[in-house]
Each structure stands twice: as C-alpha cells, then as structure tokens.
C-alpha cells in the first residue's frame, strides 16, 4: 500500500482566526486508493483542515501548500475543489427533503439536452449510481420518506455523479444505527477495492480501527502523528493515547470538596428523538448526584449528554420520556421548565447565544430572567431591587461591564457566560447542570468560572458539568460518568480518572468495570 502514488499532500498548513490559531503547521499525506482516517478531540482542527482542502477557506486565507495529483492547487471555493474531484459529505446532509432521489443526486449538476433537463438520462444514471452505493429504492421516492442511513447513501451517490476522486466523509456514522453503519463501512471498503480514495473523520474509534489504512492524529491544531494501521498494529488504545496525550497543567483552582449525601437520583431515564421517535437518544440512563459534588458527564458529540440534561429540565427535549427522578428521597415530576425551576433545577445550555440568552436584553434583565418573581410584587418589578441584585452579581462574579444596563452583546464570551451563570444562581438552584460551561472562552475566564463552580458546590449544591474537554472534567469533577450512544458506560471517581480510560469508555458500549 505504502508504495501507491501520493494523491494529496497538504504541507505545513497554518490557519488563524482572529485571536485563535486553528491549524499550526499541519501536514497530511493521502495515498491513492486508501482509506485515511483523521482523528482528534473536538476542536483539534479536523473540520478546519477539511475546509481548507475543499476551498471553504479559499486559497490566500491560510499559509502552506496543497499538492493534488502531483500539482499545486489553489481552490477559490467549493466549486473549484469539486471540479477537481474532491467532494465532502458533511454530517448535516445537504439534501432537499421534498425532492426525489434522482432530483437530489443531480441537483445543480443536471444532465441537459438542448437546454432542458434530460430526466430520462438522469433516471438511468441515477439507477446506476444507486446500485453502486447499494441503495435499493425507487429513484422517484422523496428524500423525506427514506431513513437517515439511505439518505447518507444518496449523498454518496450524489458525490459519484460528480466524478469523485477523493471522497471526504465527516462523521458519516454519527446519526446511523449499527446496521446502517456497517453497510456504510463495507461500502467504503468496496470503493477502496475500486481504487477510490476516501478520508473519514470519525469519533468512533472502533470503526476507524476496523476500516482505516492510515490514521493522522490532530491535537490542538497540530499534526501529532501519522500511523500505518497494518504495519504499526494500531488499536483503539493507541489512537486514544495520541488524541489526549498531553499533560494536565494546573489550570484549575485549588479545591477541597465537601461531599454530602445523595440528594438527586435519576432512574431508567429513556428519551426518544423528537422527529424519528424510533430512535432512542437516552437508553435507560440512571445516575446520582451528592450534595456538594461536582459530577462530570464525558462523551463524544452526539452521545446524548445534552439531550439527557435538557429532557430532565422540564422536558425541553425529546418525546415519550420515561423514568423516575428523585430529590431528597421523594419522587418529583418535572413536566415543565417552570416546574423544574421550582424543584431547584437549573440548566445552563451549551449554546449561549442561540438558546441561553436573549441577545436584545441588557445585563440586569438577563440576570433576573429565570426568576423574575424574586424581584417583583404582584407581578410589578422593583427596579431598585433588580439593579441591586444585578450589581451584587456583577461584583461577586467579577463581570466586566461598564454598567448593568449594558446590552449583553457588548460583553465578551466569558462575561456573557458569567451573566448566564448569575441568571441561574439567582434561581437558588439545588442542582446546576452546566452544559459546556467554558466553550469559546479564553483561559483566564475559564479559571474564574471553575472557581465559581467550586464555590457553588461548597454551598452544598450539586453541580453537573457536561464537557467535551476531558482535561476539564478530570481537573474539575469529583466523579465522571461516561456516555456513549445514549447509554451511561462508566462511573469513574476522580482518583481513577485518566484520559485513556475515559476515552475508551466514551467510545465503546462495553461497560468497563470501575477499578
């Protein structure tokens, strides 16, 4: 294999965004006819690298060079890269639900005869392509009427309609069930046998270990290593070590936990996907939280952590919820957000801007938004009290804003996050669920937010931290649950927590007995 000609070579690619270096001196060599996997944690730079390759970040916005089929290429946009035969299939499929399979396959690439679309030819070609990807359907079926697995195949057929030479799949199996995933992986092997090159980005290390010929590992925007799977005898553990192999520095404030009794317990929590109700997003999960305890939830993207948290928080996600929730030994019902807040739950969402804050509000209004009853009598707001409350949080959380009358959009990400924290601290919660509390925040603000979280725990509250950054969980949490595909696969106390163990549990259904 190694003697096959090099199809693609990306040389010392560096890409910076204002304030952040996303890629630093990254190298990637892909040989013709292989399956090349790119692995890395969230934010390691995988997607950015693919965007550079496909021209989403056009030539000139990055430094370094791309050699494709032995020639230097400079793509100005997606069209240019597609003309060269490089096609990306994104995690979110780019299909039109109301159109047929044939129409989708040839969307923007319709076969023409004398100006009009030649539907007969399209139909014929569509059937060929569908056979190639192993899709057995009537080509006139609408996209919305076929499952997500088959939609994925239509995407691939669409790629082949464009005469693809290098197929890039971003998290192709994230939304697929096991049977569909297996079919897709078989298909990739089939392509390899026909000499088609593919790059696959995936979090599912078992799949990568099974299907890939080469693996390039990225971490913090750098190429860590490139592994030849067959020659080096690579297994999942080896990949994990490469992905997380960094030291945990003291990025966390000193803290001695004061952990009390179990006060919050969830049993057999089952949630179905709101659109395709046959998909289980949480499969009978159960967990406990003690007073004063910081509990982490580790898992890869799409593992179902956010969905678990939001479904608990007043049924804000999913359908056909079942399971029991106990607080202080008594079963409680959480039928609406208002009820959840009344029972002392607080949920700080992962997407601050989309669902955490009203960006039109000012700081003080945002802070009291979740429990305005505390600053009002008979529904009439007391502006003096509101102002005083906001000022108190501004001081205690050290929020940098000229005034609490300032619009929240004017604040930096870290300060916005503190405003959201204040908003939920104001509701006097017993259990705070923090979903990615430090996403998009610089190191200094992170440190402060860790301090706030620890202080909340010391007040006897339970805190759940959902994070995709393993070092953060290991540094902050007293106990970590691992979640994989909607199932809790591990319960790791702080002293046993190490990245390799966690990563292993996060990527396999096998429940590893806790040491």
């Amino acid at each position, binding site marked *: 294999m190694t003697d096959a000609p090099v199809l693609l070579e990306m040389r010392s690619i560096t890409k910076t965004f204002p304030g952040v270096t996303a890629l630093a001196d990254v190298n990637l060599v892909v040989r013709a006819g292989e399956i090349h996997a790119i692995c890395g944690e969230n934010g390691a730079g995988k997607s950015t690298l693919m965007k550079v390759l496909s021209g989403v970040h056009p030539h000139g916005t990055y430094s370094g060079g791309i050699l494709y089929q032995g020639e230097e290429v400079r793509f100005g946009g997606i069209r240019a890269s597609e003309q060269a035969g490089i096609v990306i299939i994104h995690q979110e499929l780019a299909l039109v639900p109301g159109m047929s399979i044939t129409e989708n396959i040839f969307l923007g690439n319709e076969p023409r005869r004398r100006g009009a679309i030649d539907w007969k030819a399209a139909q014929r070609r569509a059937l060929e392509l569908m056979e190639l990807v192993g899709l057995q359907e009537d080509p006139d079926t609408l996209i919305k009427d076929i499952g997500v697995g088959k939609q994925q195949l239509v995407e691939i057929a669409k790629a082949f309609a464009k005469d693809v030479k290098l197929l890039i799949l971003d998290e192709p199996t994230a939304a697929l069930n096991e049977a569909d995933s297996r079919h897709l992986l078989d298909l990739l092997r089939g392509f390899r046998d026909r000499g088609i090159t593919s790059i696959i980005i995936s979090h599912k290390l078992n799949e990568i270990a099974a299907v890939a010929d080469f693996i390039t590992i990225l971490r913090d925007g750098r190429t860590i290593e490139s592994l030849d799977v067959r020659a080096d005898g690579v297994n999942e553990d080896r990949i994990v070590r490469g992905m997380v192999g960094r030291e945990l520095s003291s990025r966390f404030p000193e803290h001695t936990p004061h952990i009390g009794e179990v006060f919050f317990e969830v049993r057999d929590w089952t949630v179905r996907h709101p659109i395709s109700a046959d998909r289980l997003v949480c499969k009978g999960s159960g967990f406990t939280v003690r007073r004063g305890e910081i509990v982490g939830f580790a898992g890869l993207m799409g593992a179902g952590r956010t969905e678990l948290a939001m479904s608990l928080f007043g049924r804000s996600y999913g359908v056909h919820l079942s399971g029991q929730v106990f607080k202080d030994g008594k079963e409680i019902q959480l039928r609406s957000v208002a009820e959840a807040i009344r029972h002392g739950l607080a*949920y700080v969402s992962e997407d601050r801007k*989309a669902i955490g804050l009203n*960006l*039109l509000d000012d700081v003080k209004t945002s802070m009291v938004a979740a429990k*305005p009853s505390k600053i009002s009598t008979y529904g009439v707001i007391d502006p*003096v009290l509101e102002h005083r409350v906001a000022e108190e949080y501004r001081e205690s959380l050290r929020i940098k804003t000229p*005034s609490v*009358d300032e619009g929240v959009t004017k604040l930096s990400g870290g300060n916005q996050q503190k405003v959201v924290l204040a908003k939920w601290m104001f509701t006097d919660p017993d259990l705070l669920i923090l979903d990615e509390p430090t996403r998009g925040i610089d190191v200094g603000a992170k440190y402060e937010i860790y301090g706030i979280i620890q202080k909340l725990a010391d007040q006897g509250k339970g805190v759940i931290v959902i994070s995709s950054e393993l070092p953060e969980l290991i540094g902050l949490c007293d106990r970590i649950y691992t979640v994989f595909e909607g199932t809790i696969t591990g319960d790791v106390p702080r002293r046993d927590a190490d990245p390799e163990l966690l990563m292993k549990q996060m990527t396999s259904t096998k429940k590893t007995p806790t040491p």
Partner: protein
Amino acid sequence: MSRIKDLQKNLFGGTTSNARQFGMIFTLVAIVLLFQIWTDGLTLTSGNLIAVAAQYSYILILAIGMLMVIVAGHIDLSVGSIAAFTGIVVAKAMQEFAIPWPPAIVLGLVVGALIGAWQGFWVAYVGVPAFIVTLAGMLLFRGGNQYIGNADTVPVPTGFRQIGAGFLPEVGPNTGYNNLTLLLGLAACVGVVWREWKARRTRREMNADAAPMWISALRLAVMVGVIVFATLRFAGGRVGTSLPISGIILIALVLAYSFYTRNTVGGRHIYAVGGNARAAELSGVKLKRVNFMVMLNMSVLAALAGMIFVARSAASGPQDGLNWELDAIAAVFIGGAAVSGGLGTISGSIVGGLVMALLNNGLQLEGVGIDKVQMIKGLVLLLAVALDVYNKKQGRFSIIGSLLRQFRRDGPASPPSDPGSATTPDKARVAG
C-alpha cells in the same frame, strides 16, 4: 463632565429612563412644529387638535396591541375586520334587542375576547403562524360583518356615541375653558413632577448618579410646558368640546400598557419570547400562554377600537376598519419596533402613529388629495425605516435611532460617540 456632554447624555441616548421620556416629547414637538409651519398655524388650533385626537384614537389603540403582537414576534392582519365585526354585533344588539349601551360595550369586549381566544388558540396551541391565522381571520370576520349586517349600515343610539364622539361635560364656573380638561391637565402636571422626583430618588437608591439637577428641571419645564399648552388647547375649543372621550380612553390605555410592558413580569415575558423564544422557554416562560394572551389582548383592543369608530360614525357600516391593520403596523414600525420581534415600546408606537396621523391631517389641511397622501405615507414609512437600517449598517449616527432610542425598551444605550455602537447587532433590525 461638561454641561454639553451632560445634556447630550441625558437628552440623546442617555441611560436613564427619564431621558427616554423626555426624548419622546421632544420628537412629538418637532413634528408638530413642522406641520404648524406648513399649515400656517392651523395644526395647533383647538378645533384641529380635538378632531385629530378623536379621529386617530382608534388607530393608536390598535397600535398598542399591535406593538405587543409584533414584539412577541407575530403579526395581526385581522384587526380591521375584528373591529368591523364587533361594531356590527354591538350595533345590531342595540338595534334589534334594545340592549342599553353600557352592557353593549361589555358585549363588544367579550366578542373581542372570544375572537382573540379563537386566534390565540390557533397561534399558540396549534402553532399555525399568526400571519396565516389572522389572514384567515381578516376574511372570516369581514364576511361575518357583512353577514350579520347584511352589508348594511346600522345606526347606534346617542348614548353609545359618547365613547367615540363625546366630550367632557362643562361644569363649574365659566373660566373660558373646559374645566374638567383643565383638571386633567393639572393632574398630568402633578404626575409628571412626581414621576421625576421618584425617578431621582430611585437613581439615588441604586447608588447611580442621577442626572444633574438642572437637567431634571429643564426636562420638567419642557414637559409641564407641553402639557399646559395641550391642556389649554384641548380645553379652549368651541363650547361643548374638550379632550374627546376617546382620547381619554387612549391616554388611560397608553399609561396602563406602558406600565405593563415596562414594569411587570408579564410584560418582560413578551419581550423575552420575541427576543429569543427558545431561551425564554428554557428560562421558565410559558411560551404558549404568552402567545395566546398577546393575540387575545390584540383582539380585545381591536373590538374596543371598532366600537369607538362606530360610535364616532354614529353607525356601523360594511366598510368599517378597512386597512386599519396596515395603519397600526406602520405606526409600530415607524415607532422603532423590529420585524423580528423583541424590540419596541408603546410610547414609540404612539409617536409613530402620531407621525402618521399628523402627516395625514397636515396634508389634508393643505388640500392634498388622498391619493397623494397615501403615496407620501408609503414613502415616509419606507424611508424612515430604510434610512435607519442604512445608518445602522454603516455604523453611523442614526437620526431616528437617536430620537427614538429613548422609546426603545433597553435599546443600545451607548451615546453616539461610543465606538462600540459600530458593532453589528446579531438581530436584523428594521428600525431603530
């Protein structure tokens, strides 16, 4: 801080809510003066002010409800039809069943509430977009008006006409003015002074520096001056006229709804839903209930507006309420509300409505035909909003923004000199 800066801060885009109040009156006066010159002093005659107040009170009442609908992120196209429908129901009830007028008004409000509950149900609980629900309502209730009224004009009794065409009675000694209007003016002056005093006290309690005393005094003087002027004008019309009853209803509603939207939890929830529905829901706001109540409230106000119009016209006719929705929507957007919801104030909408009303009135006094008036109004709406959008995009000082910033609820509070105001807001605003 220099005095000029003080003035700028407190009069233009200052952070205190008092500055907003002042700016509102400032804008109004500017517009009134413009037309006063154009019409050679006719605009500010007692007779004209009274006529304008009576003529446009129902549109402004609609604008109150429409502001809340638009802030919540919806639209209501059915208000004119609901007004016409309620009007004919009330007129018929009084004509055919000889119901006295006070219960007839209650009946009208109940009809409005039922219609509102019907529309609110579809919008909030079924999830049909308000545009569609109210488009359907527009046809439904226009047809209902013609069905019940047989496309005929139905007169209403004299007692009922008071809410649309009535004035305060003449009581007490002959002062050369309508005494009750004078009393109302006095009450307004006292209210304004009390408010300013209380606002200063509040600022002190917040440990925030209140505006300098001289600014407070200037602001008060101007406000009291305007109130005194308006009072004397409204009280000094022909004997038997005064501030119209419909104008008093409007003022009461404006005060009540301004308080509600500004100072209560319920009001905040409307802004929260319009600003970011998902975030509001995750903060415990009952989304469906807010949407339901907003639509219900709009229909009740539309019913009230319809009755006032019928009372003023002395009869309910098949053409009542035609195109009112457009006037109300225009008022709200000229008043600085955002198409995407979450922004806007009652007082801003009232100013927007008055701009339209005075434009109409001034042009009619000039003898400009209704065809041209419509064209001018259309252009004013477009330009007012477009100029502002343009200035926003350029990050330049926005004229309307600076004038209306005061009315905008918690609008960007930085003074125009702040370089930070150049940042593009995440939400596309239509006016500001």
